[in-house]
């Protein structure tokens, strides 16, 4: 009887080398207050200077989210006091953000759901605080790093929808190369607004749920919160508009109970940076960098290339696998076969070696070579794992590994024919059995040939030759 409405506010850290408005490096993990300068510490007299790459990445995301891209965007100051913010205003975008009125398609239970995007805007992150005893300690390494906020309309209905959205979104920004998508480390953060109401009554009173640092928590917290609000309304009470934190130990949301202070952000245009009007060169770079999105790719892999659902899912989870897959296909191989190699042996060997694909020395050319070696019978299928292991460990081409290790199967007809004749000559009993109709015995003869060849004969070819010689 109740209908639920979920909207998400997602923040992503853009993978820029420097902060949004100064030349400090945006790297994480340095000792406290290492990557700081007068600009990001809000010294008197300094001015922000917006990062070109941050602007490009912002437009890329807005474009990927099908937004109306702003022909003239500018920054606003959002005014409020907090010690983690060095200027006590946040440079953000309010009046004219990078993108507006977009949408993003998400697949839930095999169905596509279209979620409207309210806006995409670029802003700066705050510093970090550590609270201990009577004091709080401030580290501003993160202060001023570029943060992109994506606000959806309340179009999601269930916790499952929201989880699917986050997963698809995360995959998308990773494909675009604008964010590493790490929710635990906070480079992708998600807050959710949720309300419920009687069907047909529109939005209810919403609560904001924070501290959702995994896609699974997004689902669980929202499922909990929707039930909780249902219980509140069921008792004839009212939902209080408030911020609640997800407690993943106890699987509940709990009110933050902050002191309710008057706040009024007093947005006004940031006078220190002029409006930005993307020109043709800027836009064409943005467009060229917005690669095929994972969901579209997946559909193409499934419908166009006839990959299995598992293979397609596996590949689109990682842009690098997709690239390797597509590059290898472009060299002329069979898509289905290549996808199987990638999900199977390649993935397996990488896992075993604990190596990332980028550091694995596996290239499209090498994968293509490996597949061809097996296809043409030069390499026994069973030896491929070993070859891959050495490609990864020693940065060598598969053909070189095969040669060095003596893995080539003998393909030479005269040599094979010699062994075949020898096997027939030396095993008249077996030949008799075969000719009498016990065709299974042929494998015994194949085994003999393999013995003569010290395992280097291609068993398939040998079988063919035996059959031919015996007139089968």
């Amino acid at each position, binding site marked *: 009887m109740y209908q639920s409405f979920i909207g998400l506010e997602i923040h992503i850290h853009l993978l820029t080398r420097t902060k949004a408005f100064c030349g400090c490096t945006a790297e994480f993990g340095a000792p406290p207050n290492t990557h700081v300068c007068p600009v990001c510490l809000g010294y008197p007299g300094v*001015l922000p200077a917006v990062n070109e790459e941050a602007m490009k990445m912002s437009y890329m995301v807005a474009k990927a989210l099908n937004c109306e891209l702003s022909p003239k965007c500018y920054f606003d100051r959002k005014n409020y006091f907090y010690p983690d913010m060095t*200027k006590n205003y946040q440079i953000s975008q309010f009046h004219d953000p990078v993108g507006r009125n977009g949408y993003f398609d998400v697949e839930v239970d095999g169905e596509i759901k279209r979620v409207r995007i309210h806006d995409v805007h670029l802003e700066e992150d705050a510093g970090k605080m550590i609270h201990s005893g009577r004091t709080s300690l401030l580290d501003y390494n993160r202060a001023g790093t570029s943060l992109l906020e994506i606000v959806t309309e309340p179009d999601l209905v269930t916790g499952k929808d929201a989880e699917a959205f986050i997963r698809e979104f995360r995959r998308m920004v990773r494909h675009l190369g604008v964010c590493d998508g790490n929710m635990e480390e906070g480079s992708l953060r998600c807050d959710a607004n949720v309300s419920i109401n009687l069907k047909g009554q529109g939005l209810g009173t919403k609560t904001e749920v924070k501290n959702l640092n995994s896609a699974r928590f997004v689902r669980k917290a929202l499922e909990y919160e929707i039930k909780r609000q249902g219980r509140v309304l069921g008792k004839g009470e009212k939902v209080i508009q408030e911020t609640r934190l997800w407690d993943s130990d106890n699987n509940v949301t709990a009110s933050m109970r902050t002191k309710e202070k008057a706040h009024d952000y007093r947005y006004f245009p940031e006078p220190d940076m002029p409006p930005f009007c993307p020109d043709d060169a800027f836009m064409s770079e943005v467009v060229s960098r917005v690669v095929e999105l994972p969901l579209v790719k997946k559909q193409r892999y499934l419908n166009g290339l006839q990959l299995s659902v598992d293979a397609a899912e596996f590949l689109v989870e990682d842009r690098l696998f997709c690239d390797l897959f597509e590059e290898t296909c472009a060299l002329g191989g069979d898509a289905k076969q290549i996808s199987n190699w990638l999900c199977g042996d390649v993935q397996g060997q990488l896992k075993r070696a604990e190596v990332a694909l980028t550091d694995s020395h596996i290239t499209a050319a090498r994968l293509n070579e490996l597949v061809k070696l097996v296809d043409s019978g030069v390499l026994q299928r069973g030896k491929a794992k070993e070859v891959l292991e050495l490609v990864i460990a020693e940065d060598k081409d598969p053909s070189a590994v095969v040669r060095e290790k003596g893995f080539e199967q003998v393909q030479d007809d005269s040599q094979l024919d010699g062994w075949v004749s020898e096997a027939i000559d030396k095993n008249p009993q077996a030949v008799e059995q075969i000719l009498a109709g016990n065709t299974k015995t042929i494998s015994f003869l194949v085994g003999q040939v393999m013995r003569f060849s010290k395992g280097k004969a291609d068993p398939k070819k040998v079988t063919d030759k035996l059959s031919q010689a015996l007139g089968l």
Partner: protein
Amino acid sequence: MTLLKSWDRVLADVQSRTEYQNYVTAWESKIRSMLTFDLNRDRFGAQDGPLANIPFAVKDNIAVRDFNLTCGSRILENLVSPYTATAVERLQAAGARVVGKTNLDEFGMGSSTDNSALAQTNNPWNVNAVPGGSSGGSAAAVAAGLVPFALGSDTGGSVRQPAAFCGCFGLKPTYGTVSRFGLVAYASSLEVIGVLSRGVDTLETVYDIIAGRDDRDQSSVARPQNSPARGTARVGILRQIAELSPAIDAAYRETIEKVKSLGVEIVEIDIPALEYVVPAYYTIATAEASANLARYTGIRYGHRTSDDSSMEQMVAASRNEGFGDEVKLRILLGTYVLRSGFQDQYYIRAQKIRTAIRNGFDAAFGQVDLMLTPVFPTQAFLRGEGELTPFQQKLADKFTAAANLAGIPALTVPIGVTDGLPTAMQLLAPDFAEHRMFDFARRMGVDMAAMTPDGFDEGWRK
């Protein structure tokens, strides 16, 4: 370059330095124009360049590495700047050396320099009179001959009004032509670093060095390749000018006659929106100030109270102890006009009026090459009885603040001396036409040799 030429030996040897120090010390006991004076601190002035070894002073809201950056405020009283403003760097690269940081109204908020929390600066012409503000220290130092030029900042007249009060030239450049990087922000969309000097040539030399686009200030602009024509055939005056003091009124009329005598046509101009300069200016300036001054909390630098009972208490008390009354008033006004529910009525309306003022000047400069107006309705005022109230001082910003709202350049030109105090007029020009004003100021032929306060001496450095 004659004025500058006479300065290039003052730092040359121990004896010259001593004479220089003595001259400054004698004056400073009367006028206290500088918060710091140190001939040895600037380690960054280049050995050669057009301004090699020329000393200059910098308003203490402009950053110079190793020097204080007090902004005339308790809250930054002990801050030593870790970096240098672009404009200062450019002068250092040309060989000039910073020798002093000059006093100002706290954060540039005032018209007398009496709003400085750190020192009282007196007018070199009459120590009972204010030097004007907010760049009062720079104006007093230049007028007394302590430096050949000084940098100031002009948000609503803060270079031009003290230049007028102390009897020197004062340039407010076109918005953005001089980088604001290193200028402590009061009202970012209005202000610009300016120059004060007793000579137009010096002003021009310095301006040409400090002007230029800066990567660290994205609101800075490049001057166009084809600069506006330098000649002046027509000068506009406002049809309605009211409430001038007798001395200023006389100087104004005299200047109009002088301009006519140069063969230049005088054209009466109407810009009705100018009636609203003061409210529009103060609405925008205080709004921006409320955000710009939010960073002073005693957390990262600057004054911090001893009251650490809570974070909020610590911040509020540090600000309360660190800011003077005028600064608090303006922060409150600015916060108020930006509040939701009030923005349309104040801040946004002011921004629209700003557009009307700009349009008015654009139309005017279709008819005339320059505009001529008073700088301030009175000469430098005396402290005590008869002094303008803070509110009256704000109303009197109407002539100067118009240029900041429009973004156009303006120049204070000294006219003469009446009752022992200087009089001055203001030239206004279209964007980037600074050199047109310089040329016209030279044509006006001010006799600076006659514009010297008692005690002014150039003999010691010859």
